């Protein structure tokens, strides 16, 4: 063996390289089968950032299809419920520039809303129940329907099918439980008042 190596160094080196490549190839091949990732992880990651309202304002029948669409190169600014926050998050994930929201697909609303059924007027047609992507409307044919507020994402999809227009989107009432402090206001022009004359605004001055 040693003789062979010493006499035919080129051949020995060749055998060694081929042997190594076979071993590593086998290891990699095994790993590829054993640790195969099911599905497209990027789609899952994008889907996790989308607001899951399933409203279809992006033109897709739900958030997951839009995530798939983004993965296939669609613009990332088609989600009004997510708004700029979501766009920024996706831009961050995909390492692209964050565009502003595409107004074509709707405007970002300031307040979170939920559907509210005026129950006196409901005729029990079940059309809204079929439209709700969240199964958040409770009711049966010819029975009054009502919305489970906790499950409603405010996607609007039930408003249009209602034949008697008894569904309103009402803003969610904020309670003390979900109240939070605001960030301190920042000076508008980015500069800070640093000279003495700026301080006339202080209450001591006019008290």
């Amino acid at each position: 063996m040693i003789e062979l190596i010493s006499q035919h160094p080129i051949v020995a080196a060749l055998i060694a390289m081929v042997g190594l490549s076979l071993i590593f190839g086998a290891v990699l091949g095994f790993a590829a089968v054993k640790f195969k990732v099911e599905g497209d992880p990027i789609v899952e990651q994008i889907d996790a950032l989308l607001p899951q309202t399933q409203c279809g304002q992006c033109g897709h029948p739900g958030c997951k299809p839009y995530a798939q669409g983004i993965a296939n190169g669609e613009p990332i600014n088609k989600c009004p419920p997510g708004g700029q926050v979501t766009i920024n998050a996706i831009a961050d994930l995909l390492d692209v520039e964050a565009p502003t929201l595409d107004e074509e697909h709707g405007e970002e609303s300031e307040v979170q809303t939920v559907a509210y059924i005026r129950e006196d007027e409901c005729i029990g047609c079940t059309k809204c129940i079929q439209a709700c992507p969240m199964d958040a409307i409770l009711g049966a044919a010819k029975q009054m329907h009502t919305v489970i507020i906790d499950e409603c994402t405010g996607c609007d999809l039930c408003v249009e099918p209602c034949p008697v227009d008894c569904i309103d989107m009402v803003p969610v009432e904020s309670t003390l439980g979900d109240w939070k402090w605001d960030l301190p206001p920042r000076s508008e022009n980015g500069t800070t008042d640093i000279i003495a004359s700026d301080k006339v605004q202080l209450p001591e001055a006019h008290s």
Partner: protein
Amino acid sequence: MRKTWDIHGGIHPAENKTQSLQSPLGSVPLAPELVLPLNQHIGKPALPLVAEGEQVLKGQLIARADGPISANLHAPTSGIIQSIEDRALPHPSGGSGPCIIIASDGNDTWTELEPCADFESADRNLLLDKIRAAGIAGMGGAGFPTAIKLNPRGNLTIDTLILNGTECEPYITADDILMQTRADEVIAGAMLLRHMLGNPEQVLIGVEDNKPDAIKALNDALATADNKAIEVVPFPTKYPSGGEKQLVQILTGREVPAGKLPADVGVVCQNVGSTVAAYRAVRFGEPLVSRITTVVGEALETQRNIEVPLGTPIGHVLQHHGFNASKVARLIMGGPMMGFTLETANVPVVKTTNCILAPSAKEMPEPPPAQACIRCGMCAEVCPANLLPQQLFWYSMAEDLEKLEAHNIADCIECGACSYVCPSNIPLVQYYRASKGTIRQHAIDKEKSDRSRARFEFRQVRMEKAEAEKEAKRKARKLAAEAAKKKMAAKQAAGVDKPKVEKADVLASAIAQAKSQDLSPEDQLAKLERAANSARSRLEKTHARAAAAEGEKKDAILARVKDAELKVQDTERKLAKFIEQTQSASAAEASTDKQEDVESPEKQPAAEPDAASAAIEKAKVKAAAQASMTPAEKLQQQLDSLKTRVEKARARLEKAEADNDENVEAFRTGLEKMQAKYEKLTLEQTNSQNDG
């Protein structure tokens, strides 16, 4: 003297504690109206148990805890429930919430209480129930229900009980005065809590050394109580030593890990005020209906501590302390470091109100405008939680929540030491509070969106399943229909042969023609008949109902009548068309048939309408006439009749095409067949003529 440890950072703001300690513990006259918010603690709001107009006694339960993290609420005085309505709350948001309003009757009559003199031998679960029933919530300011803290998870061994008499915030002296005046109750409470926690080795009462009177009073009380396990531990004054985790570290040297509770390091920590309340709840059966509050500030003539019934409007308290509205800069509940500004004095004293601060503008000026961060690092030096406030500030400005969490913003106790030392006057702690709120909000949103996703996916799966089931059913039906068709075809093959051999059935041809359709003509006819009948009966029924109905409903029923009428028309048209087809087929066959035997009207379905039977009669007569003719004449006649019929059929087809009738196809195939037959006959005639 016992060894104490030091905490990182901390500050030494002006204490301002002497103002309120000049006068002894006082009280204010009972307010005519007490406002009791249903949520004075951390957790779920209590559920009211009383109705408007109900007479209540002092100490009576008026709202019960909703779930484990909640607290009972008791009437602080006797009187009448005036209403249960939304009132302004002492909350930084300045919002309002549900409150029980009691109009006091001035008698202050206690309800019957259930004292327990010998708590040392009582069962600890019973004692826990008593404390829970008394509605005691952490009186140091956080308002965490006390009973929960006293019931640590089973696998944790508690070796140290700490009573927090630190009161490190400037101005506040409520705990100080409590320890001075009720030292014996503090000690008795310490013994009670020690008993309840299974007699931990040491009970440490932590008091900052700026309260010598309190320390002396406690030591005196301890001497008479003669309990070796309890020890009063004075330690150097520094803000914020009174934070729970900070105090645990000062007294025991143990650091509570991030996201854990003191119980995880074997310590339970209680405020001295809560301890006294717990003692009174057990010993005398007294629920928490009043508390000691510091009323202080330069805008007041009298600055002191008072024992005040819960629910007393702050405006009422201020009024009895010579409040000077023109002098006050703002009203603060809590201390100057961690308290919050009240938008109105029309809010009540609650279980967590340890101080009402009415400073003058000189005493507490508006903070100067914030300037740029100069990265001096002083905030990091004073942070008692060992955080990097400057980094947190940047990330808060950028709203980078991930980075904030990575820098442990959750461990910030919002003490405000960083803002206090900031040379640029940046309100750092405000940034952290806001960011913490945003993080909390995001966590809630995330949870909701995850739930939404799960629901949406479940719905998707459900709908797919339903669709698959429908598809399977459809397939099964199709298979069954095909099998039935095959069977029918086999049957017909057998049935069609027979009449050909025995006698020429006029209808056989009709059957043959109808073969293109699945059902036999009889079945089809019967089916159509049935449909027509049911449609007719429905129409009648609806008519009857329309006659009976009135008002709005009538319109709906009339619409239904119209519907039914349309259906009847449709069915009748179909029936007529079918009959016509059958008839034309049978007539055509009959005319070409050389056989005389055409009498098989009994084979016609009994229900065959008159038109069909008339046509058959006509065909029969024709056939009979043909029988008497010569073959050549017969052929000629047949040809003539067929020719006229072809003409007729063509006219009909054209009309149908013009009208865009749905039966155009049927007409066309009929015409084509007739034309084929005509050609065949012509050929036959020529042949016979040639022969002749």
